[in-house]
């Protein structure tokens, strides 16, 4: 405040020094913060714009989409684009296929990872060091190393054109980074808990289920969210193995829409499908972003 506070003899009536409203506002605002907010907002525009453009396009007509234009939202939103899509059999099938595949993978992977992480964190056994080192070693092995022979394996099993190659491997605790994440969390649970349970006569399986699992909920939630996003977006595995329109999951469905040799390209349909495709991921991400931040800073992977 700019009021004069000092020598009593020199004091002047306060209304003389009262600055106007605008100046008061300017003084209250930290200039540095203002600039930072401006930069942050500009950056946010860059990061959010493709999604906004996607949503806007999904409400346009074919004619609008084909022309050079800059307006984000059309004057006359075509909600019909969505209605058309929702009535499509192939869309419904792809969506339910995706939900199905992701659910099966989540159940299998989360359970098996929780079991294995328990062995690596709470149980003391000879050989643990070696097996754990081996597991961490697979982190270095790129997925490409096994992609080709796995295909041969699944081909020989007769699993091509089924959901099996996508869902079944998850049951074997795939993903060393995620096992590591859960293990680190489980290590932080106090030892006394399982010791007490052990004295009460519980076996390791019971301790895992009644003591460790309830306490590990944050870690389990983190890997669930990671796996969900990873699976929902997964393009390459379904692309390689499903090979059949009836089995397509959403990522292939959306990607295929792009490959149609139509002219003009029906961008409004593609974008409407894209919007419906990203909604689950968006919702999950916004609700659980805390887990993402923790998970990434802990393992350094993006899942």
């Amino acid at each position, binding site marked *: 405040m700019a009021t004069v506070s000092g020598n009593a003899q020199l004091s002047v009536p306060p209304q003389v020094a009262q600055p106007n409203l605008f100046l008061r506002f300017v003084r209250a605002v930290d200039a540095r913060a203002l600039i930072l907010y401006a930069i942050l907002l500009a950056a946010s525009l860059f990061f959010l714009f493709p999604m906004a453009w996607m949503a806007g396009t999904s409400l346009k007509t074919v004619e609008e989409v084909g022309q050079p234009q800059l307006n984000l939202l059309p004057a006359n939103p075509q909600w019909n684009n969505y209605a058309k899509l929702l009535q499509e059999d192939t869309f419904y099938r792809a969506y339910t296929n995706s939900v199905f595949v992701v659910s099966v993978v989540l159940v299998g992977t989360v359970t098996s990872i929780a079991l294995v992480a328990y*062995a690596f964190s709470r149980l003391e056994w000879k050989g643990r060091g070696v*097996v754990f080192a081996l597991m961490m070693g*697979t982190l270095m092995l790129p997925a490409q*190393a096994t992609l080709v022979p796995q295909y041969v*394996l699944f081909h020989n099993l007769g699993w091509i054109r089924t959901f099996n190659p996508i869902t079944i491997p998850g049951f074997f605790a795939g993903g060393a980074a995620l096992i590591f994440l859960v293990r680190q969390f489980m290590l932080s649970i106090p030892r006394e808990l399982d010791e007490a349970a052990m004295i009460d006569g519980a076996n390791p399986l019971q301790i895992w289920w009644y003591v460790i699992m309830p306490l590990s909920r944050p870690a389990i939630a983190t890997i669930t969210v990671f796996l969900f996003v990873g699976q929902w977006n997964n*393009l390459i595995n379904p692309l390689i193995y499903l090979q059949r329109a009836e089995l397509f999951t959403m990522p292939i469905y959306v990607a295929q829409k792009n490959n149609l040799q139509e002219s003009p390209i029906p961008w409004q349909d*593609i974008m409407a499908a894209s919007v419906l*495709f*990203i909604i689950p991921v968006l919702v999950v991400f916004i609700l659980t972003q805390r887990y993402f931040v923790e998970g990434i800073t802990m393992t350094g992977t993006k899942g």
Partner: protein
Amino acid sequence: MDVSSQARWENLLWAAGTAIFIVVGSILVGYAAKRVARWRGLSASEQRKVYWGFLFAAPWIIGFVVFVLGPALASLYYSFTDYKLGKPMTWVGLDNYRELLLGQGAQGRRFSQAMFNSFYYMAVGVPLQIVTALGMAMLLNNQMRGIRIFRLIFYLPVILAGGPAALLAWRYMFAGNGGFVNVTLQNIAGSFFLFDWIYRAFIFTVEAINSLYAGIAEGSPIGPFKYAVPALIGALVLLSLVRGEWTPGKRARAWLVAELVSATLIILLAARALVADPLDPGLLLGIGALAALGALLADYRDENRRYRLWTLIPPLLAALALTAVFVLGGQTEWSLYIPALLAAAAPVTLVLVARTPAHRRPILGGGAALLIGFIILRLIPGQLDGGRLSILPQYLTLQSAIVQPNSLDYLKTEFAATTPAALWLYGLVALVLGGLAVANNRYPRAARTVALVALAAFSLFAISAVVDGVRYFQAYDQIAQATGQPNYHFSQFRAATATWPDKNRVPLWMTNELWAKPSLILITMWSSGAGMLIFLAALKGVPRAFYEAAEVDGANLWQKFWKITLPMISPAMFYNIVIGIIAALQTFDTIYILRTPQTEDDLASAAFFLFNRTFRQLEIGQGAAVSWILAVIIVLLTVLQFRYNKWVYYEA
């Protein structure tokens, strides 16, 4: 029941079966482990622990054997065969690797283009990604209201870029004529003359850089410049060595650079040499490389500064592998792999000798003998195209190696065919640098003398080669112009840089081969939020007290960034670089969504090539070879970077 619900039910049955299989399998694994524990005489309570431990870990163990270890071994076998699904396998030895690594045939050329593309993503994309991620993290590293929302927004693209939807949005925005990006850019450019100038400069720069890169990737002949490249690398490193610290025992940073450069060269050359035609000089280079690699390893000492016996294992294994490769590859010429064995075994012998201080001299003497041996081998007439080697002495005495500057045929064919000489020079540079790096730890003064001599030689060589390179291009252009023949050096680059872009030019994102890769890099920058989070965590760990102390000393923002922030977050930086490089090799989704028929080959990464070869054309054999090459590169990158991460500061 329709097809998809039938498939779902079947899958559920399989899933239930798998669950049962895992439960039974786990119990069996547990019992087996327990039996082993009993057999090894562990106490009863220990046996129980082993039982439960293996029981719980069994899902991963079974999965590892079935889905990772087994397939990996199988694919190693496939990679030596010609195998199309459903057809019988035929053993072809090293043919797949030879085709891929030497760029032979249509597929080999495609693979080398994919590798060049991947390298572009590493060299251009990763730094841009790192800068974006660090910038975002520094913006977010402020205590401000609502900063968490911005963090969420900045990270959001990572989640979405994993799937095709957001990529399609980009594709639509990138449309060449009338797409959102171009219309916006043109509007901005049209509003003010300075913006217009920047806009055109941007188009010009991107096209120039990318056409130049395309020229290099296509193997546009660069004439004598190819001799200048290794000589310049060598000279630069040596210069930094001569100027750097020379304290014995203490490793100067310059030596690390030397070791890194020579190790990289050596590995590249060894990879090339292993699959080369036996008469190719690359073979001998590879052998020399193995020798130098052995010497580098021999330099390793543990914390107590003692040499370790295991350093001898890799050279021995390499020698065995080399023998095996030649035998399996059907090379029955004994004379070819006996020198290979000897060369690989040489550093082992040398190290054994050097272990006793009294016999140190043989290390340098032996190295020199090896070098001379290679030169003599290389000069055997007829066997190794010895004539071309005459370039080396010519350059060292500053003479021109272009003997017929008036003949187009000579310039086009004969001179362009001197790659062996250039490669040989690479090997020489690698050997000299590697040898010096080793020598410096034991004989700093001798090493310095050698380095000075080598620096002089490399500099003379480089100067001479550059002068000749300019002459070569001039001579070629003159003749081509006079005879009306098209110019074949970097034609795209010349076209792109001939004129300044006019007013109506727009960036042809994605549809043009010069703009395909920049588009992709822009999208990876957009989704660099994972790196941002890692930087952010690191930035939060930097103690405030450091900055306060620096402020007291009067440091400005710039100094604080370079002297405090950057060193303190170097582990995160290091991590992000490793991950970024590995991800560049594995780029797939973006390419799959953004490709057009015209740009597919210009976008393809190593992983995309693998996908094409294996799952579209069902060439399992070659696909397996690609996957092994990729795996080796990725593991090597990781190991190398961890070995040379000494610039990284880890808080003790």
